[in-house]
């Protein structure tokens, strides 16, 4: 039995290693293939009478620049009277930048690569994680722990090796945004945080680029096209950023995977319409998607605001001002949305590490453990014998803590520990408990995440 288990573990680890090597090699092959095609095309262009099947500037005399292979590949789009060869040719000559290779960026990139955009840029500096996979469908398990940009680029090349894929393996910041965005015709905002949305919109105004902006959270999505055809910019609509409490992250509030998928597809559609110059872009209108009720509403929104600080009549927002603008301070939230900042509300003697708590647990210390996470979090996983009193209900349910303490030891000094997911809400709770007389309350530093990391690696994290 034992040796069988060890064998299985060894085989699994070998498979994992080989898979990683395999996906590495595949990525290298597809990058080299793309390079070779590029090179061939350039050489052919120089020798003038060569015919490169993938040449982006090749002209068959018909003026559309589509090679025979492209005509075959895109034939179903060429057959569309309202799209046709002219739109396909426009698309081939265009470049689109997708900021963020996550839930929105995944489907957007797949469709943009498939449909034949000439050059497709991807900006991101995150790595693929297991809890991304339910919605970030461009990534495969083999890429967990590796850069999203590499993973997304490999997927795009695998779908369409004739598209030039550009990998920007860095976070978009005011220091690099002007340079990166200036190289593209259309920008797709597929980020997941408020400061990023303002920064990208402002940068598009400064550079005069159309912006296809999408967002998704929970079971809702929003979509609009900004700074195009005289329409508003993001700031015209939302001159004042939402308070941090209203800026929710998918990592806190959750999101049903297909919801960003739908919005990301619609972003690809709007970007294709703009790049190929067909149809009526979603300018001055906002699409609201409500997954639960199965409703899509399109509401007219305001036009460009004369008083907008960035695109308004008297606005003088320059490149330099853009570079000096502090978007994190403006929105009071970080540009990286993966985890909230760690609070530090309590003095050291009001806190205890998860390891020390575990020691006390093993020593049989009489205590009460209050878990202040919302009930639906508690139902996912919890520590044995913990009492769930969500932070929002703490004030009303103090009697439960008092009676639990009394029951625990029949006297006043059983210890009281408070835990949450990451160690912020537990500090808020302890602060409050101290104020109203539960002076022995202690916060477990870093919450259940630290328990999983430092005490019990088999404890599920989410």
């Amino acid at each position, binding site marked *: 039995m034992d040796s069988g288990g060890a064998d299985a573990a060894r085989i699994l680890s070998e498979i994992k290693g080989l898979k990683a090597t395999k996906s590495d090699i595949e990525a290298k092959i597809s990058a080299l293939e793309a390079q070779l095609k590029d090179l061939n095309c350039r050489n052919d262009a120089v020798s003038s009478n060569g015919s490169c099947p993938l040449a982006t500037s090749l002209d068959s005399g018909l003026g559309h620049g589509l090679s025979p292979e492209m005509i075959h590949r895109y034939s179903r789009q060429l057959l569309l009277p309202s799209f046709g060869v002219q739109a396909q040719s426009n698309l081939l000559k265009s470049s689109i930048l997708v900021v963020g290779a996550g839930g929105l*960026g995944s489907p957007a990139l797949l469709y943009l690569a498939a449909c034949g955009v000439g050059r497709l840029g991807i900006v991101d500096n995150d790595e693929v994680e297991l809890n991304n996979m339910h919605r970030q469908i461009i990534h495969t398990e083999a890429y967990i722990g590796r850069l999203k940009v590499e993973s997304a680029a490999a997927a795009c090349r695998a779908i369409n090796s004739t598209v030039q894929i550009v990998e920007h393996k860095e976070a978009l910041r005011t220091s690099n945004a002007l340079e990166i965005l200036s190289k593209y015709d259309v920008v797709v905002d597929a980020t997941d945080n408020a400061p990023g949305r303002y920064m990208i919109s402002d940068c598009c105004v400064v550079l005069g680029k159309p912006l296809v902006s999408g*967002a998704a*959270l929970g079971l*809702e999505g929003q979509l609009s096209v900004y700074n195009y055809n005289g329409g508003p910019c993001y700031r015209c609509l939302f001159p004042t950023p939402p308070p941090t*409490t209203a800026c929710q992250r998918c990592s806190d509030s959750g999101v049903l995977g297909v919801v960003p998928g739908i919005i990301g597809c619609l972003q690809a559609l709007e970007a294709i319409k703009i790049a190929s110059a067909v149809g009526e872009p979603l300018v001055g209108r906002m699409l609201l998607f409500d997954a639960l009720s199965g409703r899509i509403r399109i*509401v007219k929104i*305001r036009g460009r605001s004369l008083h907008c600080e960035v695109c308004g009549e008297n606005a003088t927002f320059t490149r330099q001002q853009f570079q000096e603008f502090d978007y994190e301070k403006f929105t009071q939230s970080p540009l990286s*949305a993966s985890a909230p900042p760690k609070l530090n509300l309590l003095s050291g003697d009001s806190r205890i590490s998860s390891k020390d708590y575990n020691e006390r647990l093993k020593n049989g210390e009489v205590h009460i453990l209050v878990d202040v996470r919302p009930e639906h979090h508690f139902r996912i996983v919890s520590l044995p014998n913990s009492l769930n009193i969500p932070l929002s209900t703490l004030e009303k349910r103090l009697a439960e803590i008092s009676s639990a303490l009394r029951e625990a030891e029949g006297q006043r000094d059983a210890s009281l520990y408070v835990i949450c997911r990451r160690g912020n809400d537990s500090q808020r709770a302890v602060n409050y408990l101290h104020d109203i007389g539960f002076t022995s309350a202690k916060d477990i530093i870093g919450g259940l995440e630290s328990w999983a990391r430092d005490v019990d690696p088999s404890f599920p994290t989410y």
Partner: protein
Amino acid sequence: MDAVEGESKYYSTQGMPKKEEGSSVGIKVLFFARARDLTGLSDVRLEVPFGSTASDCLKELAVRFPGLEEIRQCIVLALNEEYASESTVIKENDELAIIPPISGG
């Protein structure tokens, strides 16, 4: 709210049987995104005095749902799916959408 309601019925000599000054208008308010979390509702019926503006409706909503204050400075309004400024006057059976931005992805 409106002390002259009883009287105004008798002032109505202009052939406006239902919605004369002094009566109220009923509208449907739609909540999106964070507004939905804060109210716990996706829509609600609201009665406001005749002649009320979108801004008056927001004030009335703030009384019923104090939590909405959080997003008061950061919403887009749409009236019957058309753009509405806060000074737009509300009519019977209008649909007022309260749309805060989402930033997730």
